[in-house]
């Protein structure tokens, strides 16, 4: 489905990613884990065109997408969320989610200005789709609220709804449960399982090991920009290199 091959990204000479390769299997949840600064977000940015890799390539559904601008990657059906939430605070919840449907909306400015019946009908379809997504994430009641006034947990769900609403073939989640309480974390875990059951392909970047071990089929571990291990959750859990990356870092900073 998605193949990352020898991807490299340097920031001012410091490697954030060096020679990282891995693949995502269709219909599976792959977790990308690693200590802070391991390069996980940089990886998502390089896949989605938010950042440019210095070397290596990314293939998606048999097509090379390395260095494609972000909006074209999105139009291929790759959706993402952001570690530090990037919502549109002044827009309402429903409008934020509707923005997630940009790839299904019309691109013609003339069509938008004149609003012929075809555009009107498409808008109505998109609206129903967005409402269904709100329903799925328990946001129906908040539909008309400007996102800027919502609680953090609600915003996280809005971003999830915005990523999922377009039926993307691949969803990249950057720390979807960071800052959420236990209950909310469980809910997101169930949502990820539900998405998997529906056949979505996911890449999950997350520090919450319970969640990662509970929902992933495959785990890739980064440390200092290198891929140090990959395998099933159980294999990774027992890998001494992984233990060292996490524990070694903890004892060094402690």
């Amino acid at each position, binding site marked *: 489905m998605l193949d990352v091959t020898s991807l490299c990204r340097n920031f001012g000479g410091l490697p954030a990613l060096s020679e990282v390769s891995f693949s995502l299997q269709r219909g599976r949840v792959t977790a990308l884990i690693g200590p802070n600064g391991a390069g996980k977000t940089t990886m998502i940015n390089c896949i*989605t065109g938010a950042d440019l890799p210095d070397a290596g390539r990314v293939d998606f559904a048999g097509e090379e997408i390395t260095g494609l601008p972000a909006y074209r990657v999105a139009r291929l059906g790759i959706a993402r969320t952001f570690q530090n939430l990037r919502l549109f605070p002044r827009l309402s919840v429903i409008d934020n989610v509707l923005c997630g449907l*940009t790839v299904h909306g019309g691109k013609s400015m003339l069509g938008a200005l004149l609003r012929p019946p075809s*555009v009107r009908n498409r808008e109505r379809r998109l609206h129903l789709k967005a409402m269904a997504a709100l329903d799925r994430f328990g946001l129906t009641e908040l539909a008309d609220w400007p996102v800027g006034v919502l609680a953090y947990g609600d915003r996280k769900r809005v971003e999830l709804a*915005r990523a999922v609403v377009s039926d993307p073939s691949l969803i990249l989640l950057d720390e979807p449960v960071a800052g959420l309480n236990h209950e909310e974390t469980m809910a997101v875990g169930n949502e990820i399982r539900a998405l998997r059951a529906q056949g979505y392909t996911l890449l999950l970047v997350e520090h919450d090991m319970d969640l990662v071990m509970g929902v992933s089929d495959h785990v890739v571990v980064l440390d200092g920009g290198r891929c140090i291990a990959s395998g099933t959750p159980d294999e990774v859990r027992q890998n001494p290199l992984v233990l060292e990356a996490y524990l070694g870092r903890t004892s060094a900073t402690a």
Partner: protein
Amino acid sequence: MNSRDKIFYFLYLHRTGLTVLMLTMVLAIYPLLYGNPYILGLTNLIGIYTIVVLGLNLFIGYAGQISLGHAAFFALGAYGSALMTTEWGFWPWPSIVLVALGTAMIALLVGIPALRLHGHYLAMATLGFNIVIYTVLVQWDELTGGPSGFAGIPSLSIGSWQFDSDLKLHYLVWAAALICLTLGLNLVRSGVGRGLAALAGDEIAARSLGVDTRTAKVKVFVLSAVLASLAGSLYAHTFGFVSPDTFGIFASVDFVTMVVVGGLGSVWGSLFGAALLTWLPEFIDLFEAYKEIIHGLLLVVVLLYLPQGLVTGLVDLARVRLARRRHRRA
């Protein structure tokens, strides 16, 4: 739902269309009851400014960009129509279209490089463009009439029906303004409009959702230039006279003030802002004398206390209120 809820729901669902309809009726009827030519001259100017401010609001308020040069596009429309119809003997209506197309090309040429810039740099680039156009209008006097302007622009007509009185012009100008407002309302309620709002909110997020932000900015810039050009043509044919003073950088700043005071990202705010800042000086003599200072003060006060502008700011407040109330009831 009981019948009262049904009525409210119907009103809510069709609020945009109903507002346009109501405004149309008011505009159609009031000059017949109250046809003071002085007032009509003023409201005609408001109608024309509304079109410019609407375009600028799509660019500034919706797409989150800045332009301090839109009086230049207004000038291109006005002088374009003036020259085409008097010097070169073109028919007025087709020249409005041709001039708008020409302005669109110029906006494209200016916009593609300028819109790579952000914030202050974009403001300076558009300001520079305005100064260039203004200087041409003043200096190239064989063509433009120089500082003293250009008179004798014919009025528009349909068949033998001449738009030559304030009353007739009222219907022409406001028909145009209402059409433009409707187009604007259509745009902002569409996917393209949401893409613009997204790019104003967070460019990186907008791109990750599939918005081609660079193209979207250029498109809305060209659209706003075309609206300014149409308004300029209308201005020329309505008043029959154009001079550079109407199109200097202070006019650009006034347009921005109208956008900001009316409401960033509000189509109706454009009408409100244009009306408020065109009416006020006529009523308050003090305002006339210290126009620039008071404009400046108004801008600062609004930006300080209601940064989204009057209409948008109040609507935002009301939206939160309403949402809270509905939430409590549920």
